[in-house]
């Protein structure tokens, strides 16, 4: 095996159809970076979902003196509250029930909006509903059972499911991810076709050389290797560009998302490396296999 001969052939091949090679590299880069972005989104959604699902609670707001709800007749009595607590404790899906009084709710509210006093000055302690904060054993599965058990019970003002709020956010993220992945897949198809075309052009450009190689008894491997590596190298160059784009997506887009949360759901560098490595494998395998299949058609013995 004369390696510098093979490299020389690859260089000649890549240079001779330079425009095709550039187009190929760009398309591979964009398709791989979109695919990688899709994968980063999946990871981001997963990490936020696991974080929130462990935190999600059901808040049962109880009637209070100033309650606007017509089903409330004055504040919930101690008996009503105890009755509710007993019902909930009896349910196997409930992990714990905590009573939050109007005073405690007011304290929490003031703390949450401590940096915006206008919200605090608008309300007073008697505007805060007392509540039962329910922690579930398995939030995703058990929410409906527990919430329907207390909805409409006497003394209950309203039942707020945090899952409902999160679902909207998840739907947004899922939709975004699906859109990115669909565009990426279309581009991957385009990349595959481009690889096939580039290799075909390259084989056609060098049909004189390959014809002589066949006649003098060069092995198939020797004849095909430069073309195969041509595809793989273009794929690798595309991947390098894609990696740069992915690092950009992570540090500019996803890390900015992080600042909207006061707890850590950001992706680690490890996640990014995993996605980049996966993109490389996909890029190399895609280009290599496509080149190989194209060559089987155009460089027969």
């Amino acid at each position, binding site marked *: 095996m*004369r390696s510098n001969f093979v490299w020389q052939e690859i260089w000649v091949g890549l240079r001779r159809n330079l425009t095709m090679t550039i187009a190929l590299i760009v398309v591979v880069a964009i398709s791989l970076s979109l695919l990688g972005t899709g994968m980063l989104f999946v990871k981001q959604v997963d990490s936020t979902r696991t974080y929130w699902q462990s935190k999600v609670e059901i808040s049962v707001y109880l009637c209070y003196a100033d309650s606007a709800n017509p089903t409330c007749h004055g504040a919930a009595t101690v008996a009503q509250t105890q009755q509710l607590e007993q019902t909930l404790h009896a349910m196997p899906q409930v992990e714990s029930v905590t009573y939050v009084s109007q005073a405690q709710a007011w304290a929490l509210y003031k703390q949450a909006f401590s940096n915006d006093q206008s919200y605090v000055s608008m309300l007073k302690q008697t505007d805060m509903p007392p509540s039962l904060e329910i922690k579930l054993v398995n939030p995703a599965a058990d929410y409906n059972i527990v919430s329907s058990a207390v909805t409409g019970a006497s003394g209950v003002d309203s039942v707020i499911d945090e899952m409902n709020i999160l679902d909207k956010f998840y739907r947004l993220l899922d939709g975004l991810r699906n859109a990115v992945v669909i565009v990426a897949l279309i581009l991957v198809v385009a990349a595959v076709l481009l690889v096939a075309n580039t290799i075909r052009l390259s084989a056609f450009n060098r049909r*004189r*050389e390959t*014809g002589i*190689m*066949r*006649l*003098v*008894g060069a092995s198939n491997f020797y004849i095909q290797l430069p073309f195969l590596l041509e595809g793989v190298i273009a794929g690798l160059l595309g991947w390098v560009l894609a990696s740069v784009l992915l690092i950009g997506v992570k540090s500019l887009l996803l890390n900015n998302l992080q600042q909207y949360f006061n707890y850590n759901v950001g992706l680690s560098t490890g996640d990014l490396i995993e996605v980049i490595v996966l993109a490389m494998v996909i890029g190399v395998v895609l280009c290599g296999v496509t080149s190989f299949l194209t060559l089987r058609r155009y460089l027969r*013995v």
Partner: protein
Amino acid sequence: MIEFQNVTKIYPNQNRAALENVDMTINKGEFVFLVGPSGSGKSSFLRLILREERPNDGRILVAGNDLARLTNWKVPALRRKIGCVFQDFRLLPNKTVEQNVAFALEVIGKPRRFTKRVVPEVLDLVGLEGKHDRMPDQLSGGEQQRVAMARAFVNRPMILLADEPTGNIDPATSIGIMKVLDRINRTGTTVVMATHDAAIVDSMRKRVIELEYGKVVRDQNRGVYGQAY
């Protein structure tokens, strides 16, 4: 060296056989002219020897290999034992004379030291002294064919196939080409040459196999091109 046993070749979508029941043996070291009008099956004969085509019927033995039983990955090894020369030279225009010949060795993985030593020797053998660094377009037709012969012979094949090697060359220059082929033949290489050139065949007085419509109509030692000519 080359043995055809009742070989028939019919190309797809053609009702007439390109070769029909061809049965012959060419021995080691022989010089054979293959003559006959266009379409008589000369090229098919050569392509079958190279295993570029496979026969529909019959058996072909080349250098001890039964071509029907030769697997695809062993075809390159067969072709390393066969050199080829064509009417249109088939040189690489962007390589020098020396690089063109060296290419044939490079692509079968021969070491550089070997190539450096052997290529100039072969170029001198075919009569291209002092022209090693020329480009093909700086050479005459005869000289280009000499380069092609050097490339075909550089790996010391057992068989040299020549498909109308003098077809593009004037008669005077053709004599030089034939001298080179003769010289190659004298090293023990079997030479099979397809040709239309009656003068050359008549002057060489070698074995002549005549094909017509895919059949062998004459096989004659020390023959001439044809009775009619």
